[in-house]
């Protein structure tokens, strides 16, 4: 049963990807994507039934899977090298060579191929990741079907590029599942490289000048991570003599010699998770079609970086490296939240907020107490759901109004009521209790409270992120009341994914105590006592069910009263008495009796949080912190 399930979550997407690429009929493609999505989502849930497991696939047709992976790995690296030459990018060439040669030397002369290394290992963390990738990933792929159709209509393409697009999108799901299930560090590295490559191809998908430029940047930055990974891997092997991640972790907290390879592996995680100073590739990645941003660059691929850091957390617990990681993460959390305030491009806000939240998760891994690890896992789950939802909303809005600038979304409720409300739901689940992201943030802040610098950065960052979320939610509602806002037409698949994701973010938050007792507690150990849906520990209490119930009642009551207000007196807004008295017009009578339309815009606090102003300094500090982290390990 287990081999079957693993094949379903890893190999089925590969098959489906090939199917999408070669069967160039849109109906067949739709069926393949839908079928694969449903299959892997169901399998990912069934995998929970297995609990944690270790598994090695053995051989196929007499060839061991290990050698197949090695072969594929080299093939992939040479493909990357090919693209490096095609793009004439020296950095990528250097980084690709720096991976190929050490890896070849490593494979040929160092690795003891006779040693038995379990290829797969899964605990709750891996299974949760698989579920996120398979369920949210599939939903995003469903969303992509109508989205790409409209997208290509906007671009007036002669020949559809969708087969290629879905090839990489679906392939990515399998690679990502492979990554989080791998135990053999060589396998992990292979899947790591596949995600890098998929990301590169998908960013470049639209083939515009800017897309290619940004894709190139993403590739070299992630290749740098690959180099760090290769060297970390080789160094770790030379110290421990094992390729199995579990074997490395079982040795317990490490000292001296092992910290540098761990630091290098974490550095690879940092580049993947676009931590400062590597954030620019993820910001550039926003040129890709929105499903790509939602799938790779917010809810899953960037989580691979976080996953590696979190996976290795037990190995560096209590060391200086751990403290360094916490500082790096906390700094990214603060700095990216701050820059996000100055942005008006919706996707960029989401990108910065994603990096910021990844920083928070990495900070939790660095704090490295059981409470903090719990917080990190909670954040991974809920951030993925909410952020995917928000990206899809921005994509829908962009197709609806032709802009992704939040200033243009003012009063969106009057044009796209359904999407506007779902966006607001997404935003509220990001910042307010009792939803999961805030639960995670609460755990993070409580576990960080002993650390002066970290807590200062977390408190500032959390306040700053409230600003850009709250104003975005508010401005969607701006507008004069109308008796009846016309309903919005949406493609059935768009409506399905948005509604399901929105419902899921809310409902899964409600079940956070269950998720905790069922999945997280067996893995990280008991941190919170759960009684009646209330998380409690000696240092804190978070009442999920009671607050949920009271707020649900509040929302329902408020909504009923709001509905009743439909027939009450409708006053024009206050404009010093000079309103132009025409329904629906927001103007006042200005000089020379000429109507002047009112215009409002957000405070972007450029003077404090401007992107140009901060980026250089932030990168400088981020780099310094990484040097500090690695230097401390040496």
């Amino acid at each position, binding site marked *: 049963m287990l081999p079957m399930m693993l094949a379903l979550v890893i190999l089925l997407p590969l098959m489906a990807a090939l199917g999408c690429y070669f069967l160039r009929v849109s109906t067949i493609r739709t069926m393949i994507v839908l079928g694969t999505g449903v299959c892997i989502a169901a399998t990912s849930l069934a995998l929970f039934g297995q609990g944690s497991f270790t598994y090695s696939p053995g051989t196929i047709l007499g060839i061991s899977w290990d050698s197949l992976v090695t072969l594929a790995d080299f093939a992939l690296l040479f493909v990357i090298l090919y693209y490096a030459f095609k793009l004439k990018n020296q950095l990528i060439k250097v980084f690709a060579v720096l991976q190929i040669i050490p890896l070849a030397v490593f494979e040929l002369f160092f690795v003891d191929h006779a040693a038995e290394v379990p290829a797969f290992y899964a605990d709750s963390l891996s299974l949760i990741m698989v579920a996120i990738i398979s369920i949210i990933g599939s939903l995003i792929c469903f969303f992509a079907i109508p989205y790409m159709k409209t997208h290509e209509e906007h671009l007036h393409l002669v020949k559809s590029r969708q087969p290629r697009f879905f090839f990489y999108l679906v392939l990515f799901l399998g690679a990502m599942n492979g990554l989080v299930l791998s135990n053999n560090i060589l396998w992990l590295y292979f899947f790591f490289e596949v995600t890098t490559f998929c990301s590169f191809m998908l960013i470049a998908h639209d083939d515009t000048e800017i897309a290619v430029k940004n894709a190139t940047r993403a590739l070299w930055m992630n290749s740098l991570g690959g180099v760090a990974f290769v060297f970390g891997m080789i160094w770790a092997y030379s110290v421990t003599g094992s390729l199995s991640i579990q074997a490395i972790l079982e040795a317990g907290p490490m000292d001296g010699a092992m910290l540098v390879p761990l630091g290098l592996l974490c550095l690879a995680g940092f580049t993947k998770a676009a931590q400062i100073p590597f954030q620019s590739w993820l910001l550039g990645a926003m040129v890709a079609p929105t499903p790509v941003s939602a799938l790779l660059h917010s809810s899953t691929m960037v989580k691979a970086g976080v996953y590696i850091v979190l996976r290795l957390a037990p190995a560096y617990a209590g060391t200086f490296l751990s403290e360094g990681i916490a500082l790096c993460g906390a700094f990214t959390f603060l700095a990216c939240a701050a820059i996000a305030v100055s942005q008006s491009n919706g996707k960029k806000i989401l990108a910065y907020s994603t990096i910021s939240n990844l920083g928070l998760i990495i900070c939790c891994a660095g704090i490295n107490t059981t409470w903090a690890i719990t917080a990190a896992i909670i954040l991974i789950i809920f951030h993925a759901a909410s952020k995917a939802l928000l990206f899809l909303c921005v994509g829908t809005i962009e197709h609806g109004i032709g802009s992704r600038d939040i200033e243009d979304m003012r*009063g969106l409720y009057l044009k796209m009521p359904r999407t506007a409300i779902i966006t607001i739901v997404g935003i*509220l689940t990001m*910042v*307010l*209790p009792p939803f999961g992201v*805030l639960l995670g943030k*609460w755990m993070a*802040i*409580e576990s960080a*409270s*002993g650390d*002066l610098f970290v*807590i*200062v950065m*977390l*408190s500032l960052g*959390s*306040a*700053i992120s*409230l*600003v850009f979320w*709250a*104003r975005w939610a*508010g*401005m969607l*509602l*701006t*507008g*004069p*009341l109308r008796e009846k806002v016309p309903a919005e037409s949406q493609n059935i698949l768009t409506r399905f994914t948005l509604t399901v994701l929105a419902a899921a973010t809310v409902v899964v938050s409600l079940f956070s105590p269950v998720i905790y007792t069922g999945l997280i507690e067996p893995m990280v150990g008991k941190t919170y006592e759960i009684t009646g849906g209330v998380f*409690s520990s*000696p*240092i*804190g*209490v*978070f*009442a999920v069910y009671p*607050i949920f119930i*009271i*707020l649900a009642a*509040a929302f329902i*009551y*408020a909504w009923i*009263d*709001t509905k009743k*207000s439909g027939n*009450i*007196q*409708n*006053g024009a*807004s*206050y*404009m010093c008495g000079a309103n132009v008295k025409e329904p629906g017009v*927001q103007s006042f009578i200005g000089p020379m009796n000429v109507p002047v339309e*009112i215009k*409002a815009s*957000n*405070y972007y*606090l450029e*003077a404090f949080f401007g992107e140009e102003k901060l980026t250089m300094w932030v990168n400088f500090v981020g780099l310094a912190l990484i040097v500090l982290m690695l230097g401390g390990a040496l």
Partner: protein
Amino acid sequence: METLILMILGIVVAPVLGGLVSGIDRRVTARLQSRFGPPILQPFYDVAKLFGKVKVINNFWQVFCAWVYLIAAALSVGLLFAQSDLLLIFFVQAIGAVFLVMGGLASPSPFSQIGAQRELIQVLTYEPLIILVFASIFMVTGSFRIDEILNYDQPLLAKLPLMFIVLGYALTIKLRKSPFDFSTSHHAHQEIVKGVLTDYSGPYLGIIEIAHWYETIFILGICALFWHTSLVGVVVLLATTYFAEILIDNTMARMTWRWMLKYVWSVGLAMSFVNLIWLHAG
């Protein structure tokens, strides 16, 4: 069960107390200006009158936001009385703050829009300070739970004198006192008409006023934690603090939000650092 009773008690008593505090505030302010001032019960008359007015709205989301603001504020006070977790209470209170801003942004009136933006900056200014105050309380008592904090055997004020001043800044902003009253202002003060509240009227303004009473009690409750060991201490501390607020309100001019952000963050963070380093050293 006891928790539930305490919670309901809090939700019932808080608006009465909050209204009285507001009434006393107006009275004392008037005396400071050599006026006689309104009756102590004036805030209750005001709110009752507002509930008697005809409902006029501009965007029906305002109704929704006003209610959620009130309920979130009430819930945060309920949790405070139920001796829950400080951070949790604060985050619940933030729901109210967010919905107040959303309500303000829902109206297209430029006054309301600017008011909402300024309100957000006020939230931005006080929120990290309050989280730091809570973190410092944790460092002293070892818990965020109010029931555990109440078991601590000496007044927190002795260990966290500077954090109390930091909390004072947050209190001033939260109470909408000069020099920080630019998103909207209280009593007869005016700023950009009435800022974020410009397009709320009648019963909905009344709802917001009651929510504001809850918030007053919420933040005074946090202040009370600094001298939880004696009842007299609490009363003296709160009376002194509130009088200081009124004094500041009457002697300060309204400043700009830029000034507030720079000044409060720098002074607040500096004081927090000094106080927390004292803690580590001591």
